[in-house]
């Protein structure tokens, strides 16, 4: 079984080092990056499925600046087989529509049984790229997966989809595109063996020319949305931490909320 996992480098929330360009866009090439959190959860699920199947490949598909191999290495160290990086100077400034087109075009060059994506990314949080890619590639789209059970022989995949009041069970023919969240389980920490093995794993790069996409149709010029303004969030005020036993803590929290007329 082959699973492609869409992974996106996002600004590292722990580093506090994200940089903005003069026009307000994120300076991705110069901001310390990590793999998007939701992408790590679906990657973990992909790795578990391949391990259970006993054979197969997990392929990372990433669209990012040239520095991305540094970030992709952690995902490779976790156990992904190889990476495909779509990178091109003309991509900078691409909006969600262009990103969707580019990833869909790259996906069409790969063989796979399933495609996994985080339900959204922690930088843009639009959550439209995964369904967009499914639409452009004609794949069934199963979102908010809490479990994924592929049946390779029957070429079907079954997913528990989280809803507001529980879950529903969806089934689709393979190949399909599935998005997920932390409900899929805690991502593993790379082992030493994984870290050292990642050194010799291959990351193939693709340019827009390789994908047959006109550079002027994407990037800042081709964008259908425009960044009007951006600024760091305001620092949070003082935090009150309640450390008492559960009953007493609950009483204090209720009192606090009542005092502020929230409840």
């Amino acid at each position, binding site marked *: 079984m082959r699973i492609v996992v869409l992974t996106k480098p996002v600004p590292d929330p722990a580093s506090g080092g994200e940089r903005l360009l003069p026009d307000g866009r994120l300076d991705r090439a110069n901001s310390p990056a990590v793999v998007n959190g939701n992408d790590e959860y679906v990657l973990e699920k992909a790795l578990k499925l391949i391990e259970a199947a006993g054979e197969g490949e997990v392929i990372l598909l990433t669209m990012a600046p040239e520095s991305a191999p540094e970030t992709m290495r952690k995902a490779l*160290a976790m156990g992904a087989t190889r990476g495909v990086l779509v990178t091109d100077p003309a991509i900078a400034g691409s909006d969600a529509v262009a990103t969707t087109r580019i990833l869909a075009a790259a996906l069409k060059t790969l063989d796979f049984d399933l495609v996994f994506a985080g339900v959204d990314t922690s930088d843009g949080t639009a959550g439209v790229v995964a369904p967009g890619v499914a639409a452009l590639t004609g794949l069934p789209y199963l979102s908010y997966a809490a479990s994924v059970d592929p049946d390779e022989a029957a070429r079907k995949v079954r997913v528990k989809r989280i809803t507001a009041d529980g879950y529903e069970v969806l089934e689709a023919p393979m190949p399909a595109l599935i998005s997920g969240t932390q409900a899929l389980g805690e991502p593993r920490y790379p082992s*030493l*063996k994984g870290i050292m093995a990642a050194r010799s794993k291959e990351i193939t790069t693709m340019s827009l020319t390789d994908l047959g996409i006109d550079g002027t149709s994407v990037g800042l010029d081709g964008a259908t949305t425009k960044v009007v303004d951006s600024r760091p969030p305001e620092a949070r005020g003082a935090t009150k931490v309640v450390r008492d036993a559960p009953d007493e803590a609950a009483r204090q929290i209720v009192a606090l909320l009542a005092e502020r007329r929230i409840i």
Partner: protein
Amino acid sequence: MRAVTTASRAQGPFRLTDEHQMLRDAVRVLADDRVAPRAAEIDKTGEFPEDMRRLLADHDILALPFPTEHGGLGGELLSICLAVEQLSRACATTGLILAVQELGSLPITLAGTDEQKERWFPGLASGEQLIAFALTEPEAGSDAAAARTTAKRDGDDYVIDGSKRFISQGSVADLVVVFAVTDPEAPRHQRLSAFVVEVPSDGFAVTRVEHKMGIRGSPTAELAFTDLRVPAANRLGEEGEGWSIAMRTLDRSRPGIAAQAVGIAQGALEAATAYARDRKQFGQRIGDFQLVGGMLADMDAQTEAARQLLYKACVEIDAGAPDASRWSAMCKLVAGDAAMRVTTDAVQVLGGYGYIDEFPVERMMRDAKITQLYEGTQQIQRLVIARTLLGKAD
């Protein structure tokens, strides 16, 4: 379309690469969760921590120094030192298990044939076997070339007689690299040859395990060899090459001790900082008293300076710098002294509580001392550095 590998640059100029950070963090998590809770007990009982050896083996940490073609992970010196540092931050004895595995295997790495590597490395890389490095003798410490242990050729064998002292992990090792005199008449630095002794062997005996001030879980043994027969196939390199092998080994192994020292210093700094934050006297945190805060600042600066020199030394040595001896001596000198100062100050910051075994800093202070003594005393490190500065006399 072009293919690139993710191999990282060995010379990341000022920051560790993502890969090195990942490796460091993987070992740190393990050290915090599994090693730190055992450290006090290992020190108290003075017994070799078999469970820690198992832990390092199970997590492939002992595989780091060995090439991938012989079952290892092919870690370069910086990776090995990052692991030693993180383990030693929790427990100097446990960090030493990896450092000694590296030290003992270096003679094979540097002078062994492919056959010898294939014979011994898989067992060492898996952690099933441990190896020790036996150079020092009762009468030959800093003056190691004055060794008296002899190895006489007899047919296809050598017969070894003599004794070695202060051999780290000497009583638990499955393989011991022994340096012995093969030609007493040869010039001083061509008298020795190196042999891999497989334990148990007839004529091999552990005659004493030292009672030590620190690294108490790491057995330091006196070994005796009586008519011990070793096949010539166990000789590393040529006859007479032993001294050169030993010196080249120490050029690469001293950073491991520097890493142990940096780890001990970091552990002590963290313990002292936590205490200075919690402990209140005269109505305020003791760390807010400038005399105490200043000590913590000095401890941090000294630890970081030693760490940076260590990382730089690792990269230089791996890159084949011609002055590898200098780098390795400098990082051991600076890190060993930093560890001794920082741990002593950590005891001071904790006051009376620092002097009792309720807190880890007294153990760290005792552990730190050895880093100024073994793999060449600090005085020997200075000699090595001065020699590279001055060159040979006419």
